[in-house]
């Protein structure tokens, strides 16, 4: 059930409706072309040979037997990569030696995680390529694996990055006590006077928490198809959230001019942040250069789990001080995030968001980015925030319990608001945090009693700042009044529909009259990735501007037809018509029909850049979870679940609801049964969907949603990003519900049956 909490709007015609998505028929009939469906004449199939060791020196790679196998065309190693022209690259998580990126893609001197690519081969069919990969001989000198945070931070820990390249970047792997370390970066956020804050507090709590490493679990594995033409032009088809990001990353490691590289985004079967990283693309390109043939590579599920970018396992420590009325006075937070084999965990996101929903006058948040022998982490839906906010939402629940204050009421007493500072120094814009909390308190779910033994309820908040960035759009008006709308935003959540709807609204025309397409790097202007909950906001804004451009050009055209000044003509979307002097009217359709004879067809276009945090509407969500715990088996069953969220303005409410439900389910997975299980040698023991336990449909009740609409004044239609925040609250909400049900506090997620049984044993032993 979706509830929308805002005045019914007569303001909009298209926005707020739920039309069918343009890609729907192709997807349900199996016609949609995903990356692995691409077929080119003479195409070869590649296979990556991966390290069985988590940490080892590569002494020798001998491919002679593989190359001798009939059907095999080429073998690739790191030696085939050019020396990067730019020794240091910028990443979203800070600068890094470029060489490390080529070594991440194909290992050089060392392998740093199990599954690390060591060589790649291509052949006439995928089975021959598999056989050939098995024939490549690699000699390793196995090194001690740095398997856990404790291993990584031990004073005598083996050092992962001992090649000296870290010195290219200031502040990267600074020595600790004069010795090299595995701490890539450390930083501190905050303000106020911590000591004074704690000194005034009536109550101070201090706790430690852990979360496991989790994978995004998108259905479609990574894939890449590349053609390196004789003229030096390279084309890549891939499953990605952003063609321009892939172009930049591939160009950087292959020293290609941007103009020589075209990246075509295929339909995508899920990404959740992780499909902004290149894995197979440069390998496919280099194999194509070697063979002169198109080359395609596709990962299997084990490769996806072992060797792409999950999110960090984390450890956190938190201390909070409050008055007996529950007013927070001070908070001290320390977050230690596993980056994986290379620097760049989302610890900054966790640190920025941990205290996000609350006003805490004295605060410090310390973040550590620690490398260890696991795959390099990648973004995962609100990167860092679920693990960053879990400790806060857990300790607030304890605070509420100890102070005997309703847990949502306690949060409301500390609710952040317009103009309040965030941990990272930014100031909150026009936000709906209070509205969300109030919607929870008045919701029938929250007001109902939990009935039955071992049943409990928990609540938790989530905050995510959302992203802006650059987006382009153009709109071609056809003579029959139809419009083709092209943007650079890969569609992973119904964006083609949500963007067309905004265009239709701006023009006053029907959604069905718009053909909404995704362009590639050569056919549309620069557009950032579909990520950071930015697309409906930023690309929607570009689309709106493109509509304004069309309107202006139509006005000029009408002025020419009517022989008047352009400023005497106005386009009115409420009747989709141009209005001129003396009551002259020309509908959009009529104007379109006359375009060929009055100066030619027109195209509207726009390229917008939005980085202003005040304009990018931040997002808040609150979840209510009811669970039952089976005391005999330790199994937790979610009985009822309600997700309340400020969505700004829901362009397509059904898709917004889908985003919220999907995010909630992924968060519930983190809370209950998902986790990377490693042995002490850094080998993943559950690299399949059988044993990496994401929730399945019958594990869950229907997730009810409440869409609270507090429009974002920074967007023409009030949009704020909605896709990420819903993954944040479930961790705390479920843990708090478990406590309410059986009286134990889960401080280490996931709360799998084994963990619950152990906690119940402790409880029984302690009583």
């Amino acid at each position, binding site marked *: 059930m979706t509830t929308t909490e805002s005045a019914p709007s007569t303001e909009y015609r298209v926005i707020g409706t739920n039309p069918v998505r343009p890609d729907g028929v192709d997807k349900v009939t199996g016609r949609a072309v995903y990356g692995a469906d691409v077929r080119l004449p003479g195409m070869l199939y590649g296979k990556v040979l991966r390290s069985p060791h988590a940490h080892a020196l590569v002494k020798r790679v001998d491919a002679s037997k593989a190359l001798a196998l009939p059907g095999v065309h080429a073998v690739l190693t790191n030696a085939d990569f050019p020396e990067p022209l730019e020794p240091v690259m910028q990443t979203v998580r800070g600068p890094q030696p470029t060489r490390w990126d080529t070594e991440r893609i194909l290992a050089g001197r060392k392998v740093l995680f199990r599954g690390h690519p060591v060589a790649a081969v291509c052949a006439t069919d995928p089975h021959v390529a*598999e*056989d050939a990969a098995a024939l490549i001989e690699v000699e390793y000198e196995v090194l001690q694996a740095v398997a856990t945070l404790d291993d990584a931070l031990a004073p005598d820990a083996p050092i992962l990055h001992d090649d000296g390249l870290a010195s290219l970047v200031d502040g990267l792997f600074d020595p600790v006590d004069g010795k090299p370390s595995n701490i890539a970066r450390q930083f501190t956020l905050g303000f106020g006077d911590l000591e004074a804050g704690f000194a005034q507090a009536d109550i101070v709590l201090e706790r430690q928490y852990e979360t496991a490493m989790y994978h995004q679990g998108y259905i479609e594995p990574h894939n890449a198809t590349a053609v390196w033409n004789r003229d030096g032009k390279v084309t890549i088809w891939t499953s990605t959230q952003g063609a321009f990001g892939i172009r930049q990353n591939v160009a950087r490691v292959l020293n290609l001019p941007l103009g020589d590289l075209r990246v075509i985004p295929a339909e995508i079967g899920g990404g959740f942040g992780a499909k902004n990283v290149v894995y197979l693309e440069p390998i496919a390109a280099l194999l194509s250069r070697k063979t002169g043939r198109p080359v395609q590579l596709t990962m299997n599920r084990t490769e996806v789990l072992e060797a792409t970018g999950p999110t960090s396992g984390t450890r956190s420590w938190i201390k909070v001080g409050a008055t007996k009325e529950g007013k927070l006075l001070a908070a001290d937070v320390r977050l230690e995030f596993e980056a994986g084999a290379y620097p760049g965990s989302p610890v900054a996101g966790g640190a920025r968001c941990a205290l996000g929903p609350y006003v805490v006058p004295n605060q410090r948040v310390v973040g550590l980015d620690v490398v260890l022998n696991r795959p390099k982490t990648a973004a995962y839906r609100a990167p860092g925030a679920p693990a960053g906010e879990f400790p806060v939402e857990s300790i607030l629940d304890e605070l509420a319990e100890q102070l005997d204050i309703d847990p949502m009421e306690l949060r409301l007493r500390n609710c952040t608001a317009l103009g309040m500072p965030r941990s990272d120094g930014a100031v909150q814009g026009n936000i709906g945090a209070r509205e969300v909390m109030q919607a929870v308190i008045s919701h029938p779910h929250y007001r109902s009693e939990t009935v039955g033994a071992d049943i409990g309820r928990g609540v938790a908040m989530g905050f995510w700042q959302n992203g802006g960035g650059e987006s382009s759009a153009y709109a071609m008006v056809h003579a029959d009044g139809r419009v083709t709308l092209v943007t650079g935003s890969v569609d992973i959540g119904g964006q083609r529909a949500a963007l067309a709807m905004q265009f239709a609204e701006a023009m006053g025309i029907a959604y069905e009259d718009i053909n909404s397409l995704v362009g590639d790097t050569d056919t549309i202007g620069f557009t950032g990735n579909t990520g950071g909950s930015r697309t409906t906001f930023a690309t929607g804004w570009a689309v709106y501007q493109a509509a304004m451009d069309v309107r202006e050009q139509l006005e000029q055209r009408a002025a020419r037809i009517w022989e008047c000044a352009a400023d005497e003509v106005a386009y009115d979307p409420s009747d989709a018509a141009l209005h001129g002097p003396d009551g002259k009217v020309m509908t959009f359709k009529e104007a379109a029909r006359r375009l060929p004879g009055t100066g030619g067809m027109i195209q509207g276009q726009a390229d917008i850049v939005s980085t202003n945090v005040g304009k990018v509407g931040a997002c808040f969500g609150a979840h209510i979870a009811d669970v039952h715990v089976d005391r005999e088996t330790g199994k937790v069953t979610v009985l009822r679940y309600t997700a309340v969220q400020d969505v700004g303005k829901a362009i397509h409410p059904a898709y917004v609801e889908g985003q919220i439900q999907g995010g909630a389910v992924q968060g519930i997975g983190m809370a209950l049964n998902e986790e990377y299980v490693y042995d002490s040698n850094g080998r993943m023991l559950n690299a399949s969907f*059988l044993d990496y336990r994401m929730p399945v449909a019958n594990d869950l009740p229907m997730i009810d949603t409440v869409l609270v609409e507090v429009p974002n004044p920074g967007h023409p239609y009030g949009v704020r990003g909605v896709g990420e925040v819903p993954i944040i609250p479930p961790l705390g909400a479920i843990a708090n519900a478990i406590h309410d049900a059986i009286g134990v506090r889960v401080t280490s997620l996931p709360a799998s049956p084994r963990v619950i*049984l152990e906690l119940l044993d402790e409880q029984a032993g302690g009583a």
Partner: protein
Amino acid sequence: MQALKYARAASVDDAIRLLRDGGEAARVLAGGTDLIVQARERRREVHLLVDIKRLAETMVLAYHAPTPPDAPPGFYIYPGLEVGAAVPLYRVYGDPDVQRHYRALVEASHVIGGTAIQGRATLGGNLANASPAADSIPAMMALGGVARVVGAGGTREIPVAEFCTGPGRSALQPTEFIVSLYFPPPASRSGSAWERFIPRNEMDIAVVNAAAYLAFEGDTVSEARLALGAVAPTPLALPDVAAALVGRPLDDAAIDRASAAASAAARPISDMRGTEAQRRRLVGVLVGRVLRKAAARARGEEVPA
């Protein structure tokens, strides 16, 4: 996946011949839900698939009630349930006779994989694959199942309880395969039940599974069979624990004793699916649950799965 050949057996003898000629790397193909996955992941060397799905003998599904005492002289039908080794699970649990008389089998086959898997997967494949965690094997053991096997050396019967000899290993000799599975008719006042524990509700390998069959005379247990999965190198029949239930009423104390004895008899290991201690505890819990359920069913109560 490596290149492989496929052959459809035209008769039981044809299947034996194909298996003999194909040697070690020839494998019987039923639903393929284990075999194809193993071949694709190169966990098993396979060069020839011998499909046994088109044989009358492997596709039979028939139940015969015991011959009534007043039947005419000379009238006798071998009573019980015969399930061809290639009959897909959805037909097994969808069969009204199976539903009436063999509830443990319904419960186990209903949760193997999902709907799509159940359209192809078979009891024969689940047994021959000999996974220690296989879901249907403890149910088949509790129901007194017998595998009817043929091979170059002729036919023989192997009780399901003796079929598995180690993880992925069975009593089958080269060229032998299962034609069908036979289950005796249940006693008139009897019931069976099967349960497994998995952290999710679907698509998981059992951390522990358990099955029970109980028959009563008056309040007294007259017959009992109990079996466990995922707690030893093979699915585990517990004849001694079951025997201790016979000859007395099934009260709470008896159930607790059986649970404790089953926990002690289990030989679980710790792996990423569960620890040894967790599995032992779950054995006790599940044995209690299946005994209670089987007893309620024997009393004629409707107990949902």
